[in-house]
């Protein structure tokens, strides 16, 4: 709760900091606040379960763990906004504030105990994202991305809200636990279609937000059009918060109607894995490939939802999100640095990176190996925990399918690595400028990925 307050207050203060003549202070200050928030959140771990606002928000270990991921991800990502600082971007303070507000939304999404809070959290997060998607105002692609994101997102919000209203109509409550009790109560076995349509609409709405197929079609365009820095934010924080919220909703709220929604979720899982991975294969732009890859990772996270085991799934989602976020931030960071300075986002644009910037090439490799789920990196254990959760519930066919899909993914994750190490340097390419602070952060990201891959026990048993 403290973290929500700090973030909101500082978000507003930060807006006024925009009046300062120099914006060099903005990033260090934002990072400092995030460090404080991370600390405050970590302290909440020791306090056990607390509830706020008539139990509309509940801070328990689940909440703390996922808040930790989203705050950490933002913290690790911020140094790569430096280009905007150097170029004297006029609205920089606003963008930082929007990111912090988005974080408030994300935290509400993992802490909600009431469907209205979920809705408000999603909206706070989404509206900030609509704006930052269009941050590159003079770029038509960025404008397209913002508009597309906004229209599609508003549409999804409508569906979600409709679903919430229907479920409320059927059960008479917004509270998750009461909802769960009402649905599980055998006396209410004969429910009106209202409840089921409501559940279905909510599932569709959230699937939309996390970019799961067949509601994914906005993702590639939006991710490609948005400035890379914000794309990285969308594909990590938004996904993590979305899945944390989704799992809580399904487990606590809709657990009793499992037999009804499971086929839908299963279908979404299979489609998402298929479309994400096959889509990524065909791409020529690294950024668009990463957009499809983020769809495919939504698919792997969906497997944890399908497994639907209180401990194994929560743990799987937690570890997977963490490993995925760290690797994705690192991948987008390298891509952003290279793409900004070489003005291209295709595979050959990464050519010869190993010669000019061995550090970038190394970090890119580690993040790609992690995304592909190869041992020594966090991504391997992420997949391992998610898959074993599914196997323990008997979904062997699904896991085999997911394994085949990860074999496909190795193909496209290897391509940036091949480009960086084996392809020639593009004509006239200069070494990519990386500030020393960014280098340090890249090394931190790489070390985090390897630590997650070598000592997964550090965080795997938390939930």
């Amino acid at each position, binding site marked *: 709760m403290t973290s929500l307050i700090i973030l909101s207050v500082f978000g507003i203060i930060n807006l006024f900091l925009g009046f300062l003549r120099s914006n060099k202070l903005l990033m260090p200050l934002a990072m400092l606040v995030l460090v404080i928030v991370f600390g405050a959140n970590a302290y909440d771990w020791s306090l056990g379960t607390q509830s706020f606002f008539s139990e509309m928000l509940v801070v328990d270990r689940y909440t703390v763990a996922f808040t930790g991921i989203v705050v950490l991800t933002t913290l690790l990502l911020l140094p790569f906004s430096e280009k905007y600082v150097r170029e004297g971007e006029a609205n920089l303070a606003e963008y930082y504030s929007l990111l912090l507000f988005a974080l408030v939304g994300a935290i509400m999404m993992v802490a909600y105990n009431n469907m209205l809070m979920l809705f408000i959290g999603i909206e706070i997060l989404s509206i900030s994202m609509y704006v930052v998607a269009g941050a590159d105002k003079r770029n038509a692609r960025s404008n397209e991305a913002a508009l597309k994101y906004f229209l599609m997102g508003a549409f999804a919000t409508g569906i979600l809200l409709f679903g919430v209203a229907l479920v409320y109509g059927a059960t008479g409550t917004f509270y998750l636990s009461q909802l769960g009790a009402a649905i599980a109560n055998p006396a209410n076995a004969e429910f009106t279609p209202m409840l089921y349509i409501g559940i279905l609409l909510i599932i569709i709405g959230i699937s939309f937000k996390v970019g799961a197929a067949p509601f994914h079609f906005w993702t590639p365009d939006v991710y490609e059009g948005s400035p890379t820095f914000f794309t990285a934010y969308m594909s990590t924080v938004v996904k993590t918060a979305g899945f944390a919220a989704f799992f809580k909703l399904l487990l606590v709220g809709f657990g009793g109607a499992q037999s009804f929604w499971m086929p839908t979720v299963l279908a979404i899982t299979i489609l998402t894995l298929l479309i994400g991975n096959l889509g990524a294969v065909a791409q020529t732009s690294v950024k668009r490939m990463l957009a499809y890859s983020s769809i495919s990772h939504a698919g792997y996270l969906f497997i944890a939802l399908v497994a639907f085991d209180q401990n194994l799934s929560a*743990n799987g989602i937690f570890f997977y999100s963490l490993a995925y976020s760290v690797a994705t931030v690192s991948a987008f960071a390298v891509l952003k640095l290279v793409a900004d300075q070489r003005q291209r986002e295709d595979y050959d644009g990464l050519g010869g990176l190993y010669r000019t910037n061995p550090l970038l090439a190394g970090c890119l490799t580690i993040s790609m190996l992690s995304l592909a789920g*190869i041992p020594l990196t966090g991504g391997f254990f992420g997949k391992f925990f998610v898959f*074993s959760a599914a*196997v323990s519930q008997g979904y062997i066919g699904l*896991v085999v399918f997911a394994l085949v899909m990860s074999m496909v993914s*190795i193909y496209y994750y290897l391509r940036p690595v091949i480009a960086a190490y*084996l392809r020639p340097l593009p004509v006239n390419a200069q070494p990519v400028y990386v500030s020393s602070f960014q280098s340090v952060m890249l090394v931190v990201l790489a070390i985090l990925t390897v630590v997650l891959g070598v000592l997964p*026990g550090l965080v*795997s048993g938390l939930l």
Partner: protein
Amino acid sequence: MLTVFLLLWPVAAALLLHFFKGGAARVVALGAALVELAVAAFAAVVSRGNVSGQFDVNYQWVASAGINFHVGMDGLSVLLVLLTTFLVPVILLAAFRREYENPSSLYALVLFMQTGLVGVFVSLDAFLFYFFWEVALIPIYFIAGVWGGERRVQVTFKFFLYTIIGSLFMLAGFVYLYFQTGPAASGLAQHTSELSAFYNLNLSSSEQSWLFWLIFAAFAVKMPIFPFHTWQPDTYTESPTVATMLLSGIMLKMGVYGVMRWLLPVVPYGVSQWQPLVLILSVIGIVYGAIIAIRQQDIKRLIAYSSFSHVGLMAAGIFSLTQTGMQGAVIQMLAHGVNVVGLFFAADVIERRTGTRNIADLGGLTRRTPLLTVTFLVVLLGSAALPLTSGFVGEFLLLAGVYEYNAWMGAVAGLTVIFAAVYLLRMFQRVMLGPDSSFTSTITDLSGAELAVMVPLVVLVFWIGLFPNTFLHISEPAVMQLLNIVKR
């Protein structure tokens, strides 16, 4: 602790190498590899005559999932660790002779790979085994890719995809086995991925039947067994010689070792169901590889196919499920490692001096290079399984094992000895004897450092050939124990 040292030491040295350049980097890399060899040799001496439980180290790794960091060495492991630690310094020495760009990264990758290789041979936990299995792959991919020949991009890509897809099947098999341990439908912490637990599972024979292929996929690609071999000749040819030596000398043994430790005892019924088919595939590989080798014009490619043919025989020996065959495979793993590294090094020496590997372009090397001729001939005859050399003992035992299983198969497999003599001696004759060619008129003999590579190999060729019992005694108890589990 000794085992852990063997695993951590090369990584530490690899990290340290980033701070060294040029000559200093060579000294550090070679020094580290020699220390590793000394420790492994000490382990081999200590472990003589013991069965298992040697140098066991068991820590909790992922406690919430019942995964342990469990390593240990029995006679079989210790021999392969010894082979790895012996070949790595030799390969490093060989690499020093060639002007590679960015050499300290190359040496660091070789040492890093050594950790993966040793890890594979000492792991006693399935996920740890898989972990090291992939850790060994990543450095070799970069060595082959960054320092390779013209077609390296496509070739290494194919190699990487083949091997990793194979190993993902193995992982799927391990995950299934993992969930068979412990009570059904319980939390992860009740399951275990210990090798010993896998040995004691009660799997139905139909389960074992498909599990066999899941696990075998990884090993079959790595060895490679016909028809999973198509990545191999290209990769061996296009890779820099360092990578080729690592691949053929050590990495191939990961597959053979994997079959002995992680396939046969885990799914014995599956093995007995598929035994005839795998034997037939192996024998096809033996003959097919040998026939193609006869027709090769490129020295490296010829050795690649000969290696493919030889590994087929190892697989056949193991799948005969006889003690003779298994022991033959063990000794042949050592012999083949030594021989093939020597052959590839000789090919590299010739290529570096003449600029060609094409057999037709070469000739008459003997007159100017007596040292090369003698050492090359020794490893070549070792590979052709001449009595008193390393290859003979292994092939004899392997063929005897296959013969025990089925006389006809033994007879066909026996063709390998004849074929090997044909293609190897034909190559030697055309390259070393005969009239000079324009490429070979200015060739110089082996330098001191190159002799330092060849002489240890030559010594071992004779050592294994004359005193195979030094090594067979070490592996015998371990092999007996494995067979007892298989035949249970």
